[in-house]
């Protein structure tokens, strides 16, 4: 009979259940009960809760082998008793596997130092590899979260074919091989129910979600009738916004919220794991189907291939549609414009450069892992030689060579699994903390997590590593050189020929290091070039912010201008403000307004292609604030008011393209297609890099704000002193005018510019880090092997010294012998690097893949590292005491 259970104070239930599983039957009950009683009566009072917890777990874990053995014996006995054929084969395999594991574990414990080093280096390599694979899996490899995502396309008209609602609707109407929808970025000023904020989101055509095949988690997605002109304004919220701003209120569907001070009905909320086209979208609103409204708004068309159509079909239909569109507008498309029409798979568009960058990282980490394996193999070869006596004895006693090899491999496997386990923990930590530091250009980072695929990768990496570094040493160690091994090996002269394997491994490591370090060098050089690019303006000490005065409170142009006037005054009154200006689209920020233009003094020829230019709206202080040089003529000024003649500034590219070699001041430009705006050029300013540091500028026309109204204008403010403190002051100066006006993009211009090359910096530094790691590992490898070789050559060196060789000659000979594999590695590595670095070509900026600076300095760096690594072994070789050596012989 079993007594009532004593108070179950903090008994480790999991451990108890585990024990019960492996030890079934009445005996198991007794055992568990015994353990319980001991735990409660003696251990818990004496060791406290934590100590008792550990004790309990230890008991259970240490009892596991006995439990397993017991079950196996049971089964065998039952089989024999029942007269079944003794399944010796199978049982013996399991038995001997267990035995192998047992010996492997003992072996690892016995050689604690070596094992620890191996496990740590493996953990580092496998951990880094798994983490990077996790990123690659989440960003590049995993499916897009849309139905049938490999049939989704992005239609890529470029700057020449206007990307706006009218063309999107035209495509949707007329395409046969694919369905079309479109989205455009929007900024939605939310008010009511909390602080006013500008929420980034999208304006979409009503069939957007239907095209993607996405469902809402609450309510519904947009239906075609939501797009009818005149339908009430409807929005869909993202999960993040719903949680943060509306407190996860389940009754939000059907309620109305205020956007730009107008009521909008919430029809649905998307699920937490839905991934919008751009990561920072918080809500979606409907853009109606009327081609006339919101015409200038840029929209990006998505398409889904219909059944039976291929990408090539879509591509040719797209060209045909473009031709029709131009024809409708009264002119024909040029081959250039048609070539710009592209249909690309959506995944390629989303990934962009990131695919190449992440693959480069993956290759780098694979190289590091290979180097790690080479190092470990060297270590094991060295320690295997030390075990020759033990192995020789076992061979002599009749152990099969195959069995011994299997056992040594099991040891390697156990080491690799231990290292891999630690590596997985490291990878989990890296992924958890590191994702936040990824540059903004890398898409889909919210999809990065350790899932089954990543764990499997870690496991496979461990097993493959074990095979790579364990096989050769195992084969080596069990070669049958019996008598020599059982004898006093130390007394014989070491055979230098036997160490070629160690040195070959070192050469291999060095070659791999060369590949990695040159790649890193190229990336660093490229990043350095990017940093040095002159953007055409001076972003330092400039604070920016962008108010969005809502139409409800500032309905007319005059109200908007008045607000900005007051804001400018408020900012100017701050003591640290040196100058300020405004522009509707700051460089390096999203947003663009393009228009075609015509030179007034050139005749209109029918069907000729009209050039287009970017249009910017600025205030007079802008160019001086950003230090953009004025090359000819004059800046805009107060005299260019609403009643004055329309003027404009143009940039140098436009000036040279339109009137090469002549003075553009005073000439006239016609903006827009048919009979539009006539502008007089009053000055020329320098070119700047508009969208990012890599691409050169395009033509720009600058219009004065007083003559061209715009609702949302950036302020650019040049500050004295600490710009971060100044930014806070400027923000407050504007906010204090009217707290209901949301302020977006509050930042320093140099941070914005720096952000555009964040991905380059990230890649360069990561590769540099790996390169450094490879150097370190390679140096450790050279040091380890040479140390070992010197210690084996001690008798020979002592003999040579006794025969008259100077210590310096021995040092020289050691260094020389050590550098041979390094030189070999470099010779093999450089051409390999030339080939492999071609893969980096797409991400390099103004650096050739065979850049001489990098390729010249890398061998020097490696040679230096090798010399440093050889210092200690060489010194030891010089310090050999010939007397002691001779005495030992």
């Amino acid at each position, binding site marked *: *009979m*079993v*007594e009532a259970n004593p108070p179950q104070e903090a008994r480790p239930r999991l451990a108890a259940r585990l*024990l019960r599983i492996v*030890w079934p039957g009445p*005996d198991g009950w*007794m*055992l568990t*009960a*015994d*353990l319980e*009683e*001991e735990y409660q009566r003696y251990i818990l009072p004496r060791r406290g809760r934590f100590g008792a917890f550990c004790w309990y777990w*230890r*008991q*259970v874990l*240490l*009892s*596991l*082998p*006995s*439990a397993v*053995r*017991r079950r196996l014996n049971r089964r065998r006995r039952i089989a024999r008793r029942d007269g079944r054929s003794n399944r010796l084969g199978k049982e013996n395999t399991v038995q001997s596997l267990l035995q192998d594991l047992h010996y492997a574990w003992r072996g690892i414990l016995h050689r604690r130092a070596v094992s620890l080093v191996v496990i740590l280096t493996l953990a580092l390599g496998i951990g880094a590899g798994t983490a990077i694979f996790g990123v690659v899996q989440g960003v590049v490899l995993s499916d897009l979260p849309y139905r049938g995502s490999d049939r989704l396309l992005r239609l890529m008209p470029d700057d020449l074919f206007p990307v706006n609602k009218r063309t999107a609707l035209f495509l949707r109407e007329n395409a046969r091989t694919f369905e079309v929808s479109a989205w455009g970025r929007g900024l939605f000023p939310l008010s009511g129910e909390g602080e006013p904020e500008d929420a980034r989101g999208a304006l979409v055509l009503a069939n957007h979600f239907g095209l993607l095949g996405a469902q809402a988690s609450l309510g519904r997605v947009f239906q075609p009738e939501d797009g009818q002109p005149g339908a009430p304004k409807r929005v869909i919220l993202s999960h993040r916004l719903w949680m943060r701003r509306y407190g996860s209120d389940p009754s939000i569907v059907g309620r109305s919220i205020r956007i730009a001070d107008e009521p909008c009905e919430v029809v649905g909320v998307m699920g937490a794991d839905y991934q919008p086209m751009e990561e920072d979208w918080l809500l979606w609103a409907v853009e109606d189907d009327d081609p006339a409204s919101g015409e200038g708004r840029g929209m990006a068309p998505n398409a889904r291939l219909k059944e039976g159509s291929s990408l090539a079909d879509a591509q040719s239909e797209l060209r045909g549609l473009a031709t029709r569109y131009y024809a409708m507008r009264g002119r024909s498309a040029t081959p250039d414009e048609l070539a710009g029409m592209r249909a690309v798979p959506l995944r390629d568009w989303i990934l962009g450069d990131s695919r190449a960058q992440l693959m480069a990282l993956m290759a780098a980490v694979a190289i590091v892992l290979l180097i790690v394996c080479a190092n470990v193999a060297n270590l094991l070869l060295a320690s295997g030689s030390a075990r020759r006596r033990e192995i020789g004895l076992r061979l002599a006693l009749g152990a099969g060579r195959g069995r011994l090899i299997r056992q040594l491999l099991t040891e390697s496997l156990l080491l690799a699994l231990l290292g891999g386990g630690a590596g997985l923990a490291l990878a989990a930590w890296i992924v958890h903390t590191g994702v936040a530091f990824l540059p903004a250009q890398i898409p889909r980072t919210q999809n990065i997590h350790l899932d089954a695929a990543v764990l499997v990768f870690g496991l496979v990496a461990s097993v493959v590593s074990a095979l790579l570094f364990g096989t050769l040493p195992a084969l080596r160690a069990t070669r049958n050189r019996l008598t020599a091994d059982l004898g006093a090996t130390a007394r014989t002269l070491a055979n230098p020929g036997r160490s070629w394997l160690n040195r070959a491994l070192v050469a291999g490591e060095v070659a791999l290091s060369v590949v990695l370090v040159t790649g890193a060098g190229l990336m660093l050089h490229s990043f350095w070039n990017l940093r040095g690019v002159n953007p055409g303006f001076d972003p330092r000490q400039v604070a920016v912010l962008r108010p969005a005065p809502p139409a409800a409170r500032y309905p007319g142009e005059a109200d908007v201008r008045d607000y900005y006037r007051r804001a400018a005054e408020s900012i100017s009154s701050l003591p640290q403000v040196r100058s300020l200006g405004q522009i509707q689209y700051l460089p390096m920020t999203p947003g663009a307004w393009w228009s075609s233009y015509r030179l007034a003094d050139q005749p209109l020829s029918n069907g000729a292609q009209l050039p287009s230019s970017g249009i910017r709206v600025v205030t007079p202080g802008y160019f001086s604030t950003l230090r953009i040089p004025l090359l000819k003529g004059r800046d805009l000024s107060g005299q260019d008011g609403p009643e004055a003649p329309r003027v404009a500034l143009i940039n140098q590219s436009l000036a040279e393209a339109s009137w090469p070699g002549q003075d553009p001041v005073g000439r006239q430009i016609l903006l827009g297609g048919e009979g539009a705006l006539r502008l007089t050029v009053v000055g020329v300013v320098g070119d700047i890099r508009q969208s990012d540091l890599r691409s050169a500028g395009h033509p720009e026309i600058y219009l004065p704000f007083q003559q061209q109204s715009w609702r949302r204008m950036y302020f650019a403010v040049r500050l004295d002193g600490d710009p971060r403190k100044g930014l806070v002051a400027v923000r407050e100066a504007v906010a204090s005018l009217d707290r209901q006006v949301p302020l977006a993009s509050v930042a320093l211009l140099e941070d914005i510019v720096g952000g555009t090359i964040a991905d380059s910096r990230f890649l360069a530094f990561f590769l540099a880090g790996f390169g450094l790691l490879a150097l370190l590992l390679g140096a450790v490898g050279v040091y380890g092997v040479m140390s070992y070789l010197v210690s084996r050559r001690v008798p020979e060196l002592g003999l040579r010294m006794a025969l008259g060789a100077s210590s310096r000659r021995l040092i020289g000979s050691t260094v020389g012998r050590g550098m041979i594999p390094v030189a070999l590695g470099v010779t093999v590595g450089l051409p390999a690097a030339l080939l492999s670095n071609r893969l980096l070509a797409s991400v390099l900026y103004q650096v050739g893949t065979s850049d001489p600076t990098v390729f010249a300095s890398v061998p020097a760096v490696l040679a230096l590292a090798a010399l440093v690594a050889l210092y200690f072994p060489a010194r030891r070789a010089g310090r050999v005491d010939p007397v002691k050596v001779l005495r030992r012989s």
Partner: protein
Amino acid sequence: MTATLLGAFEELVLLALTHLGGEAYGMQVRREIERRSGRSVAIGAVYATLERMLEKGFLEARLASNDKSGRGRKHFVLRPAGLQALRQARRLHQRMWEGIDSAALEGEVGNG
């Protein structure tokens, strides 16, 4: 001499049982070994060994319900065969150790 030699751990278990007066249950044996040897012992190993020796006939099992906790416990009792195995083991040890002095254990084997 009986057919099989006692394994090292088996010997420890039987010796512990002897110390405990020839009869004890599993946990008691574990405690005794731990106390005397100073090494930590897993209860599973003790139980498995006790079962094995039960099969070999060195021990017999008895269900006792006489102690304070009132629950049924499996007590293991040393049988004459078990005592015989212990005696044999001691004789074997004595014979193998005969002639080895402490000096031989410290220095190198053979002529140095």
